[in-house]
């Protein structure tokens, strides 16, 4: 076969492929909108039918079994599942069970592919599954597909299935970051139920080479905000050698709050690591106890910019903190004045000073602040 013949064959192949793609595109474009519209119409029809069932508890409009494989029906069930309550949930669950919807979705989840159907099944089970579904979700919490693991955890969280907490914690340290944070969000949804399993997890795993799971668990505890956990977080802060763990513990203490959180944070405020000092300043601001104002005021002269800034911001949120910041404006140290001025601008003291100045009732502190802010052509360092 000579070169021109090969070339002509190549041309024919390329053009045939182009024509196939072109036809595919035209068909897809033509059906895209119609498909979406039909889906929405079916969904609305299913919502209406299901609503009638829930209202009268009569099954006059029989729902075809094939509906259990229809995405529009699943969407309609999810829609209703999120708005009904009490006996209506039981009726809806009965309907769904009668059609074998959950079982079918479980079977789809167990398949190896296609990804779209497996994901759809995982989302459906997460939304409409009941306690009988929990074992399947726990089984797939170690699925090879990250998004399916996330959906399974979400489903367990929605069911508040306590066995699910241990299943999620088992994988917390080995998951990739995206799944880990989604698992963390699910654990937060468990609320106080997850507090002690998380504390146990931290105790067992703290100090291991890989602290990723521990850090996430500490953050979750902080967000749940159960004050009983304060001593455990203080203990973590005291014994941990990994600064990332210490930072997470400081942040969590700030969220948990309470009088027991203050001494370890006050200690961290004097750490040799600027990151711990800066984080501790923010955490103290978050707790809102004015007894730390003096300690924070001392940090306005810190050598590190972040520590000064966070300390000033913390003072800005504490009762009486604005007075400490205004007093700092008389400090001979410019970095401290800069940090204080920034926060005073952020919390509205500067605006108030301007307004009082315009009204002719400015105080000595107002004048001091205004003069500092508008001094010179180049106001920046």
């Amino acid at each position, binding site marked *: 076969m000579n070169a021109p013949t090969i070339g002509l064959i190549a041309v024919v192949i390329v053009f045939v492929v182009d024509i196939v793609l072109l036809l595919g595109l035209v068909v897809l474009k033509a059906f895209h909108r119609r498909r979406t519209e039909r889906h929405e119409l079916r969904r609305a029809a299913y919502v209406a039918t299901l609503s009638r069932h829930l209202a009268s508890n009569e099954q006059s409009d029989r729902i075809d079994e094939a509906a259990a494989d229809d995405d529009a029906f699943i969407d309609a069930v999810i829609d209703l599942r999120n708005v009904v309550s009490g006996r209506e949930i039981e009726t809806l669950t009965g309907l769904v069970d009668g059609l074998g919807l959950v079982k079918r979705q479980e079977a789809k989840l167990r398949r190896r592919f296609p990804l779209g159907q497996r994901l759809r099944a995982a989302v459906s089970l997460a939304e409409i599954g009941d306690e009988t579904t929990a074992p399947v979700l726990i089984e797939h919490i170690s699925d090879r597909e990250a998004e399916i693991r996330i959906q399974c955890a979400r489903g367990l969280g929605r069911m508040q299935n306590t066995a699910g907490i241990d299943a999620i914690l088992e994988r917390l340290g080995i998951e990739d970051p995206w799944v880990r944070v989604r698992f963390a969000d699910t654990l937060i949804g468990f609320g106080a139920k997850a507090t002690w399993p998380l504390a146990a997890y931290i105790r067992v795993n703290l100090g291991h080479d890989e602290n990723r799971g521990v850090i996430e668990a500490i953050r979750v505890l902080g967000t749940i905000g159960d004050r009983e956990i304060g001593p455990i977080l203080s203990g973590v802060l005291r014994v941990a050698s990994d600064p990332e763990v210490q930072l997470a513990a400081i942040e969590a203490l700030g969220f948990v709050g309470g009088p027991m959180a203050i001494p370890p944070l006050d200690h961290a405020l004097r750490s040799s690591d600027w990151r711990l000092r800066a984080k501790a300043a923010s955490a103290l601001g978050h707790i809102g106890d004015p007894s730390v104002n003096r300690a924070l005021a001392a940090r306005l002269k810190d050598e590190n910019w972040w520590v000064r*800034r966070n300390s000033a911001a913390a003072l800005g949120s504490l009762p009486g903190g604005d007075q400490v910041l205004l007093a700092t404006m008389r400090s001979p140290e410019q970095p401290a004045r800069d940090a204080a001025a920034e926060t005073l601008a952020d919390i509205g003291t500067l605006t108030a000073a301007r307004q009082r100045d315009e009204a002719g009732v400015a105080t000595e502190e107002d004048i001091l602040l205004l003069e500092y802010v508008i001094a010179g052509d180049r106001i920046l360092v």
Partner: protein
Amino acid sequence: MIHDILAWAGYATLVYFILMQLYMIGLGLRSGAVMRRIHHLNRFGRVSEMLSSYTSPPVTIVIPAYNEAAGIVASVRSMSIVGYPRFEIVVINDGSSDETLEELVEAFNLEQVRVPYRADIPTAPVRAIYRGRGTVDITVIDKENGGRADALNAGINAARYPYALCTDADVILDANCLVGAMRRVVEDRERTVAVGGNIRPLNGSRVQLGHLIRAEVPKRLVPRMQVLEYLRTFLATRPAWSQMEALPLISGAFGVWKRSAVVAVGGFTIGHMGEDMDLTMRMHRYHIDNKIPYRIVYEPSAVIWTEVPETLRVLKRQRIRWHRGLMTAVKDFLPMTFNPKYGRLGMITWAAMFLFEFLAPIIEIVGWITIPTALALGALNTTTLFVLLALAFGFGLFNSLVALLLDESYGHFNSKADTARLIVMALIENFGMRQITVAWRIRALIGGKITRAWGNMERKGVANLGVEG
């Protein structure tokens, strides 16, 4: 002798052409697989959960503005309601000679403040800093003119959050673009230093109060051609580059950058005509040379809409500028080209950028000269010429159709008129438009005054979009 030279030139061009097409087809197919997966994940994955998640890292939106008085307020308002839990907006007034600053002060109740400004990256002098007193968390840096790169550097300096979305004043952000992009950061917070977004032409679409109401294909040929180009670039190429973790370019109109990493490499290069490509490549080089684990990725669901040139005159300026930027980058990063130390970036994507972007106009112009000569001298028969031209057309059409199919994930452009316009464009763009683009790139290679000017984009502005004409 001349026959032999022409024959060899022909063979070399053919081999080059086949390699380029194979590369493009490979990228298109790989992108298709990536996009299909992303489509499923976005459909079912509930990325929106990030909106209420405490794990979403805060972001600073950095907007450089030079003489943007007409549209800056609408732009900032549009960006201020982007769906994301925690973000601030930093606008840099880059020495505008119009009322840009005054418009901002008035609209957002700005107040001049004295705050510590960390000049981590040197910039032109900053005159003043303003903070918003209204509902929008906005800071305005008023500085002397230093160009877009300098303004972005000032914005990076002023950013209070660890990630900065560097964008333009004349774009419209999709409601979920920041969530989409930041999802990639959360996936691997330690390694992710930059995330690029999917930029789409806005011309011809319906816009109201700075928001996209409905995407439509422009009626004018020049922006319509660019719709196809952008789809090919952002849907059929970058997903594959990103999956290889060898993305050589994060486009300037939408890039989320890790602040500390930008500071570590010294920020955007002032005066560079392709400052986005330059920063992306320097990021790669810095992390590989220093053996720091990192990744630079692209997220197709992070969509932003931007105005593209409406006329050939403006498009010419833009393309010349882009090619000059590429030329500078090729020169600066020549040691990385075909260098195995830089992995897939050095051996595949940047090497391909050198071969199929930088060299393409040169090879094509050689073809324009040799093919007619060879035909005239009888060194090339008409069958061979037909085969070459037909293959060029067929492959070009293939790449456009793959991009249009991939765009189906988004569900835009479904009216009969839009479909017809896109298909007609895919068929005709090889006859004239492509050749004009090559000529501009050759013009960029030659140099001269026009190639050194940044040029005015002559935009309508987000606030005035929505009507063609």
